[in-house]
């Protein structure tokens, strides 16, 4: 039964992808990309990857679409027809495709329990998480402790993207008057969306917090929570307009959130070093290594959540505030 479902979803994915590339209206493409992400997320869920599904839904279908749309508002919504470069593209793509298809035949079949990936490192995580961490979600355990260093790197990728967007769009980090919008007032004059939106915002934040702090026991954790909470604030700014949103969470606070999150993560690591362990070895923080790890993981997950939330908000506002601004430096 599941396999029928999976095949249906996968086929839908391909169809959506073709439609995305074919459509010459960029707006349509972006909306289809959102559908593509949702399908992908469902697919991940079917493949037993709940955490990834949640992330893909929150980040891929949610935040990415919003960022794309706010960028479209600043550029163009229609793609101009252009047929050059097709030949070379087809050749390169064909070569790569044949390479991959050549490789497929020796791969382990889907779901094969004897595949090498299920034999070597992963069983260690599955067998020891309960004992070493004291909570059941193995993905969170690997993410924040066994491979915590990767996650640190990832937080800094987000940080880099955040400062990059701010740098390139030249958005001031303070609240200069030039960068506050005047024209955009959101959906203030539309009663129904506003009322419904207002009701929803606190619940979305609540859900985000649940995902954040329930990450050790169920699917979830810092990334997903950060993205969900950012969505709530983005919804707020769509409802009330940029200005009100920036008054509620000013730019400096957004950037502060990113920096605090990143530093919090790093400082836990440094603290571990000072206490005599290796970098990010939480077990030295307290006498009981299991409790120590749990505390370390809660703190770094909070850091991750803050960093992701702040970064997504900064990026969104850097785009959104610009659409209302007079682009006087255009050459």
């Amino acid at each position, binding site marked *: 039964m599941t396999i029928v479902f999976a095949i249906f979803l996968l086929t839908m994915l391909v169809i959506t992808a073709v439609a995305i590339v074919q459509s010459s209206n960029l707006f349509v493409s972006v909306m289809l990309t959102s559908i593509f992400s949702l399908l992908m997320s469902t697919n991940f869920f079917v493949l037993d990857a709940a955490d990834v599904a949640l992330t893909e839904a929150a980040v891929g279908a949610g935040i990415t679409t919003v960022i794309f749309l706010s960028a479209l508002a600043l550029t163009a919504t229609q793609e101009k027809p252009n047929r050059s470069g097709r030949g070379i593209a087809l050749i390169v793509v064909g070569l790569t495709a044949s*390479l*991959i298809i*050549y*490789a*497929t*035949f*020796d*791969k*382990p079949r889907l779901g094969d329990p004897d*595949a*090498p*990936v*299920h*034999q*070597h*490192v*992963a069983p*260690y*995580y599955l067998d020891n998480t309960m004992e070493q961490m004291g909570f059941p979600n193995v993905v969170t355990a690997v993410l924040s*402790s*066994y*491979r*915590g*260093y*990767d996650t*640190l*790197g*990832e937080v*800094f*990728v987000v*940080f*880099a*993207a955040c*400062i*990059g967007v*701010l*740098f*390139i769009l*030249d958005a*001031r*980090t303070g609240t200069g008057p030039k960068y506050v919008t005047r024209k955009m007032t959101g959906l203030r004059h539309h009663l129904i969306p506003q009322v419904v939106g207002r009701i929803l915002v606190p619940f979305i934040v609540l859900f985000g917090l649940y995902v954040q702090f329930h990450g050790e026991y169920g699917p979830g954790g810092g990334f997903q929570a950060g993205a969900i909470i950012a969505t709530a604030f983005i919804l707020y700014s769509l409802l009330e307009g940029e200005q009100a949103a920036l008054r509620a969470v000013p730019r400096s606070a957004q*950037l502060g959130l*990113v920096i605090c999150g*990143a*530093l919090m993560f*790093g*400082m836990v*690591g*440094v603290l571990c*070093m*000072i206490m005599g*362990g*290796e*970098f*990010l*070895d*939480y*077990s*030295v923080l307290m006498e009981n290594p299991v409790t120590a790890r749990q505390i370390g993981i809660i703190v770094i997950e909070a850091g991750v959540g803050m960093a992701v939330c702040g970064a997504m908000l900064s990026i969104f506002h850097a785009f959104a505030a610009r659409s209302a601004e007079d682009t006087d430096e255009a*050459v």
Partner: protein
Amino acid sequence: MDFAQHLPALQVIVPLLAAPLIVLLQPRGFAWAATTATAFFSFAVSIAIAVRILAGDILRYEMGGWFAPIGIELRVDAFSAIVLLIISGAAAISLIAARNSINQQIEDHRQPLFFAAWLLAIAGLVGMVVTADAFNIFVFMEISSLAGYILIAGGPDRRTLPAVFKYLIIGTIGATFYLIGVGMIYMMTGTLNLEDMAQRVVGIEDQRPILVAAAFVFIGLALKAALFPLHVWLPNAYTHAPHMVTVFLAACGTKVAVYVLLRFQFSIFQSFGEHLLQFALFLMPLALLGIIVASLVAMFEGHLKRMLAFSSVAQIGYILMGASLMSDSGITASTLHMFNHALTKGALFLAVAKFATQYADLRIDSLKSAARSMPLTSFAFVIAGLSLIGVPGTAGFISKWQLIMAIMETGNMGFIMVAIVVISSLIAVGYIWRVIETLYAIPTDDLPDDAADVSVKPEKIDMLLIALIFTVAMNIYFGLVPGLPLTLAELSSKILLKVEF
């Protein structure tokens, strides 16, 4: 806390954590000073690591206290150490010289973000080198790439933007190809740790996913390293980047990708007897073509920065040609050339940055008789140019000599390659001579007087010039006393070829 024990971790996390701090504390001027201080600290750490390596150690560090295939391991050997020295040295020198040039090119309020990106770039590059985990390399590759895009996007010209965009697209494709390759290897071995991978790949090396993975990892990293036919992003990105960023990236940006490439080829895929041969047969023509074509393009290029950028593509060819010989001396030459080329190109681009303080237009023709107003810079350019050509007494000579010796070992076929090295060196003489001729040209009286007068200002002695002279001096020093890099390079080739541990 035992300081020495944490060296590999400190190498990465100090620049990494300094970046948000710089964005947090924003007063003017502080950003540059703090960044430079961090870079120097980082350089000191690399030197400390190199000292330990020369004493015969291999540094290992278990992140999070988890042992190797379970957690992420950092592992520093001689090959890593020499690349670490290149990165942190290039960062320190370019940053200390950067102040005026950056003030000129980046507005004040954007500087904290810019310098934070610079620190992230250092951390990302260094992180790729110290880690022994295939996926961790990807994460840090992305940090360094994103930071690199930001740095290049600081360029003042509008042509910077399409150049960065192209770099972003190609860089992401490269990283994703790498990710596909790593995924396929992981699928067949179940591990991400490089050493563990190398052991577990034995016995299944002829399975298709592994072969295809080798291809994907190779293409992905070749894109990042700007290997000859995949170099299209490099010239524009280097040309339009802020001058000091070009110094930094030209010295170490692509070398790190080469480093990862060689690591993969020699440690993971080494066990495939045939694979190595294929690798050599595939790589060598590309490297040779790259050397010739890129040198020729440089010969006819009118813009000084673009010319040097194309010369960089040719130098990547030299580095990979040495590696494709698959011999001890070949890899020694290749590693040594990484080091020496970083010194040489760094010096050349520092000179370019210095020229840029007085000449807005960096096309070669407009630098006419610049030696009159900037004698020291021009002289430094000449010396660095000689090193690029490979004149005896400079660092460039040592690595080219090593390369030629390594080629001679291979026998009959070697003469063609030696011929190519010699020819391309002659071409290098051509394009460097073109610049020198322009710099020292006697000003013609036909020029309108005002144009000549405006440009002739006395050469200001600032940090940039001092850094330039220092780097040129290093070029000569390592040309005469090549002990340190040579030892490290020899150790690296032993490690890569697993002669002894």
